[in-house]
């Protein structure tokens, strides 16, 4: 049974942006589910951090939100990645790679 952990600190925004880039417009619940799914159930997005994070992304202009009618006929609010958001995502991915490589280098170097 996969252990459910919260999303690593500082990565939620990046994950949300990536999910939106890959999966197109999604509403909040769907974003949380997608992250959970793609991480093979390793990562669980707490609702308490999802919505504040989405609001921050809206404030920064990295996503935009519109009300649409879903397939089930409910009104839902879908988030879409903006061009600025795509740029920000690229930037964060680069940073994340850089940090990961640095950490990996330390760990591998320590084992040598």
């Amino acid at each position, binding site marked *: 049974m996969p252990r459910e952990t919260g999303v690593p600190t500082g990565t939620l925004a990046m994950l949300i942006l990536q999910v939106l880039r890959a999966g197109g417009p999604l*509403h*909040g*619940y769907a974003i949380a589910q997608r992250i959970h799914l793609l991480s093979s159930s390793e990562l669980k997005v*707490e*609702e*308490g951090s999802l*919505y*504040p*994070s989405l*609001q*921050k992304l*809206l*404030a*920064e*202009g990295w996503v935009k*939100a519109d*009300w649409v009618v879903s397939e089930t006929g*409910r*009104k*839902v*609010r879908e988030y879409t990645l903006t061009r600025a958001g795509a740029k920000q995502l690229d930037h964060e991915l680069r940073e994340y790679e850089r940090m990961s490589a640095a950490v990996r280098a330390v760990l591998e170097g320590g084992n040598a």
Partner: protein
Amino acid sequence: MMRLLRRIGYLLQRGRLERDLECEMEAHREVMGEPARFGSMLRLREEAREAWGWGWLDRTMQDVRHGTRILRKRPLYAVTAVAVLGIGIGLNLALAQVLNAVAWKPMMLRDPDGLVRFFRLSPNSSSSGVPYQVARYAERNRTALDAVILVQTNRVSWGEGDGQPAAVSFVSGNFFAQMGKGVRLGRLFQEEDEQGVPVAVVSHQFWSSRLNGDVGMMGSVVTVNGVKATLIGVAAEGFHGPVEGRCDAWLLMEQMDHYFPGSRERESWTSNNVNMYGRLKPGVGMQGAEDAMRGMMRELAGMYPQWFAKDEWLGAAAAGDHFRRAQDRQMLLTVAALLGGLSLMVLLVACANVAGLGVAHAAARGNEFRMRTALGAGRARLLRQLVTESAVLSIGGVLCGWFVGYGLSQWLCSVTEFDTPMEIVPSGRMMGLAMGLGWVTALAVGLIPAWRVTRQNGAGMREHGVASGRAGWTQRALLGAQTVGTCVLLVVTALTARKLERLVAADFGFRMEGVAVVEAALLQHGFVGEQGRQYWTSLRSVLEADPRVAEVTVSSVAPMGRTVMESRYNDAPGIKVTHISVEPEFFGMMRIPLLRGRNFERGDTRRTAVIVGQRLAERMYGSVDVVGRGFPVSEPEATIVGVAANATLIKITATDVSELYHPLETAEMAGATLLARLRDGVGLDKLRDLAARADGRVRPQARWMAADFERKLQGPRLMWEVSRNVGAFAVILSAVGIFGLVAYTVSLRTREIGVRVALGAGARQIAMLVLGGLMLPVGVGAVVGIAIGTLGLGRLLAGDPFYLDPREPVAIGGVVAVLVVSAMAAAAGPVQRALRIDPAAALRGE
């Protein structure tokens, strides 16, 4: 930028966006398997709100609403605080308004940067005007100036019949082209108008008030000084030219003899009656203009040595400095600094008072703060809350202060005849000042109680009734600060009172009772020199023939008249010398004794004889035995024939002036004044009747010299009234502060007092217990305040233009008495309450 716009957009549509978020979260919850895990929607909404960066605004509004609620529950405290702050802020704003109009606000003139005004200067004297012919010479021979503009202020009667007085400026034809700021109606002067029919332009103020804003008046004929002129235009609103004070209308200087028939002013090379302005050529600075003028004056001295000395020059002052020369700016700065310091002192007293009230007010909310701390509020949170509450008070204070300031400045204008309109709608600068004062008061008034309250770990004030040696030391310090400010203001009040008292009772060295002053504006009617002498001779013979007139003399200016030529001599430092030309009868008639030497004789001239005042002799020569010596010492221009006893003829408030008497010469007769001592019971109308018989062309004006004296007292009277009201305000505030502190002490130490009374303490001991905390701050505050007022400010107050002598033990004694009496009166109530405490009830904690 976009981020900011998005944030502002959120703020404007907050309601809708928050509802959207709520719906969204609700929908999310519904589809969750375990809705309970969603968490608190309220907390999530708050966190979401923080993400937009407006959390601080929410918290501030919360504090403001809370503060307003608290203040509504304590209306007396709120109203008192707002009123006190309002008066303190208002006083400062009123002063700033006046200073703004007088010194800071750019003058309402076209392109003021290029405009300068010229003063006629020599090593020993200065004059603000130049002779008409000098100005025209400068215009014809200008090298550094693009234009020369002439202005002469005057008074005329406007309207049919006797008309109403109007303040006018006679100007050169290029005045509006060079200085004007646009036209409201009709047109303004052009240079060609100088050769045409008499025309007039009126000010906007005059047109809307005296002429009822009648648009149809343009082109109509008006009556000025009994003759006709055509009204051609109304100047732009607020324009009054380069002169300070009111200007109702402008007339052309070239047409002056139309209004004053026979006027020879425009022929004058000697009377400094015209204000001369210039527009600098591009690239030429003030120094360049002064150099050019110096050259011109040297030319004139060469051509007309009888009228111009070789060491004269024309000094310049820029429009940016309101056409004030350096020494006038210096004096204005000194006065402004002093008045500014005093009014800030009032604000200090006001803030200290309100802060003291605030400390007591916060003390009463101990439970509230304890609860807040228990709920997790940190020190910073409590501080922020209290400062926000005091900001609410400050906003009220600023609004109240704005109206107080407006009212005060309007009153000042009305009593001083200083006629620059004050603004009710704030200019940017005034608004900035008001807000600045508001911030300062908010911090001053809020931080102290806030710091005090939170210092006790947020536990608020002590339990009711538990004594503490350090109880209220903040309040004692605030009371001390208030007392310092109050005493400084009281010292100024006492000194102005003593000054006025001395002036009213003073002996100025001459007798003015029953003396009337007769002025005839002969120059403007075309009398010069010998004609003037003949006029006065004729008038004198009419008067002397009448038994109701006891004595008559003529002098260049009347005692108690307006300022005359003033000099400073290097040989007599620190003394200002006022020149007055007199006939030999003058000294006898004014009862001024001659201490040495002789009176003037017929045949004495300016070049041969002077009589010096006693103070001047002592300062310049070290003795009064100076008859026969040259005056002045270093470069004698005349011989001293006599020494007159000190007589303060013109500047009655000053302590550093002395008179210098010259024989009255024929050339000065046209501008002279007649003095007549009337027998008891004789009225001015009799004098006017007699005077009118001398020459049908001239209508002399007569007034009592004593009335001129009263007019001179207006300045010191005004100073006394203002400082009395401000001093009273400060005393009341101090009394309130004392009352607050003593009442607070009593309420805190009720149990202790009950115990002591139960153990046999008498009334005296209880009173000392309660008042003990008062003595030190009030005592120290009084000593410091009086020291600042007498020693610190003493030098500034003793000089021009206040002339307040700080060595007044009676006055200082009065300050101490007022302070003690007000303190005792304020403390009486709470002390009485302490004495009436029932020990049993106190011990039960009631």
